[in-house]
């Protein structure tokens, strides 16, 4: 989607066998990865997969149960406070002060980050311009819309110009236009050399990332650029089907020998064939649907999206886990 960042292969985030347990629950199960300077690194996974837990460990907000990691050259266990001077963090929940005005929130965080007087004014104007809040500087933060709040939160997190930015599902609950604007800001920061570590469960957002880690049930199940993930994990052809009663159609298709898996996708279905050649699968689907009396105006082979990859990865993982759960039972 965009050119890979032109930078030396300097590693700014690195974790090894990072693990977090809450009692007997394993939230993050020994993951290892690294992020290069200037990269936009996406952490993709369903809710509860361990995304937030990982990001909190990287920011020094949670102590890992096992494993190690370094952020901006500092150990995440021993030097958590040093890390905090070099990162910006935006938590999942909006966490500025509702009863303060826009300007007061910015001033508060410039005080916390000890910006000089000149810098403070310069950065405040930058944040207000960036977030489009110039005319609302005296508004109470509680009165802002979701998109504005989120841009203000981003502004407050980067007041001190941190080299690494951690964003935990920054765009959840925000309208698509605001989400798009937010990504423009992320690109802008990234072009200035800021490393962005972002978690999301929006598929189209993960396409914007330079590199992705897919996390599921606390485990890192895939790692690579969006293109690599598609090439590596989904060699089979993907067929898009537009039909009525997609729920029932999905049941039918899942039992065809030519089809590996089928999933609801928008108003229709996506089916993964058993091989790279789509033709036999398309033929089989057409016959099966017609035979069962479904109306299917469109059945065609498409380029797989990341969502197809994601669904396929997770189904593969579930299939691999299934026998174990039965044995445990």
């Amino acid at each position: 989607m965009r050119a890979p960042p032109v930078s030396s292969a300097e590693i700014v985030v690195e974790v090894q066998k990072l693990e977090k347990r809450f009692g007997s629950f394993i939230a993050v199960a020994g993951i290892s990865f690294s992020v290069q300077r200037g990269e936009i690194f996406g952490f993709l996974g369903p809710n509860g997969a361990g995304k937030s837990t990982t990001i909190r460990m990287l920011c020094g907000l949670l102590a890992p149960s096992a494993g190690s990691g370094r952020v901006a050259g500092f150990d995440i266990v021993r030097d958590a406070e040093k890390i905090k001077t070099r990162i910006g963090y935006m938590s999942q929940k909006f966490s500025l002060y509702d009863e303060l005005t826009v300007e007061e929130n910015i001033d508060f965080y410039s005080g916390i980050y000890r910006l000089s007087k000149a810098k403070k004014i310069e950065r405040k104007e930058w944040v207000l311009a960036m977030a489009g809040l110039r005319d609302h500087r005296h508004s109470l933060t509680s009165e802002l819309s979701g998109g504005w709040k989120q841009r203000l939160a981003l502004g407050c997190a980067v007041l001190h110009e941190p080299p690494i930015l951690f964003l935990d599902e920054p765009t959840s609950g925000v309208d698509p236009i605001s989400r798009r604007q937010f990504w423009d800001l992320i690109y802008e920061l990234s072009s200035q050399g800021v490393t962005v570590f972002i978690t999301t469960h929006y598929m189209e957002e993960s396409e914007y990332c330079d590199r992705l880690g897919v996390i599921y049930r606390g485990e890192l199940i895939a790692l690579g650029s969006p293109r690599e993930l598609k090439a590596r994990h989904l060699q089979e052809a993907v067929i898009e089907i537009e039909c009525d009663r997609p729920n029932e159609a999905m049941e039918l298709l899942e039992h065809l020998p030519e089809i590996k898996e089928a999933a609801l996708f928008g108003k229709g279905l996506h089916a993964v064939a058993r091989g790279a050649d789509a033709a036999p699968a398309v033929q089989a689907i057409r016959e099966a649907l017609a035979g069962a009396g479904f109306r299917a105006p469109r059945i065609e082979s498409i380029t797989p999206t990341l969502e197809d990859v994601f669904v396929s990865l997770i189904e593969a993982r579930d299939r691999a886990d299934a026998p174990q759960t039965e044995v445990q039972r």
Partner: protein
Amino acid sequence: MNLRRLWAIARKEAIHIRRDPRSLGLALGIPMLMLLSFGYALTLDVDQVPFVVWDQSGTPQSRDLVARFRASRYFDFRGAVENYRALEHEIDTRDAYLGLVIPPEFARRLDASRAAPAQAVVDGSDSNTAAIVLGYPQGITTTFNQDVMLAQVRRSTGLAPSPALDLRPRVWFNPDLESRNFIVPGIMAVIMGLIAALLTSLTIAREWERGTMEQLISTPVRPAELVLGKLLPYLGIGMLDMAIAVLMAVFLFHVPLRGSVTFLFAVGGVFMIGTLAQGILISTVARQQLLASQVAMISTFLPAFLLSGFAFAIGNMPVAIQVITYIVPARYFVAMVKGIFLRGVGVATLWPDLLFLVIFALVVAGAAIRFTRKRLG
């Protein structure tokens, strides 16, 4: 510790206070209300005790005794009764607190220089008041006896003897023994402690509940900056509360303020810092506003009310409880406020109490800083 960051926190906290006029109103209004109600209602003085008389003697001697009761400001004559049943009725209906029964042979026995019994029936349903009420006839009886004896001696010898012991008591600091004079300074201390801990008990718990704490602990802010920055604006409110209380004590309740006003406020400031820090400590451990405010209320109000010696003398408590009072900061503060108000003493006398308050403030603030963890979970 960085002063810029401390100041940023203090300013933010001050804005929170300003934007929440209802809480600010409560913070200033509750102390006034409490001081008013306690100052007027909580009086330990017993006077104008209503009493009735069943005078079966009906002689000058018995009338003299009744007249002495009627003349005392501690008694309020409610009339004469003619039998026990009527007397009982007066006490049952609480129209009288004391019934004086003078038997028919009262004057005859007096004249014969024999002991002349009279009966005082007291409503003992409130034992404290009853004990005080029982003390009053004692004084009247003593002077009555003295006069009778003097008259007898004079009659037999023609000389007026002088009594052997003439004790002349003088009450210092509170000559009229107005209980209000020591209750108002005491209740001031109780109120300030309660309000101070309540104010700060919400601050850190609120940040945890709203999720703003997560953002804050991702910054390089230090626990000491956070705790002291939050403490500062509430110290301002606390001192304002104290000023209101002192003004009310002096101008509304006319409690004499004999010591140094500056010293009084310095002592108040030290006490306030310790108690505000106690609120923050509770807040940072509880992480929930409701829990924190309840703990703050119980941990300040109860000891301050019961164990500070503000209303109940510490010397009368069982030894084990007396030992506990030594770790109640309100005990020292109440002692100092009373000392400054009534006895007019200063640091030369009160330094041990002040030292304890300073140590308490340091220890609790230190604990609050220590327990303010910059980690989730």
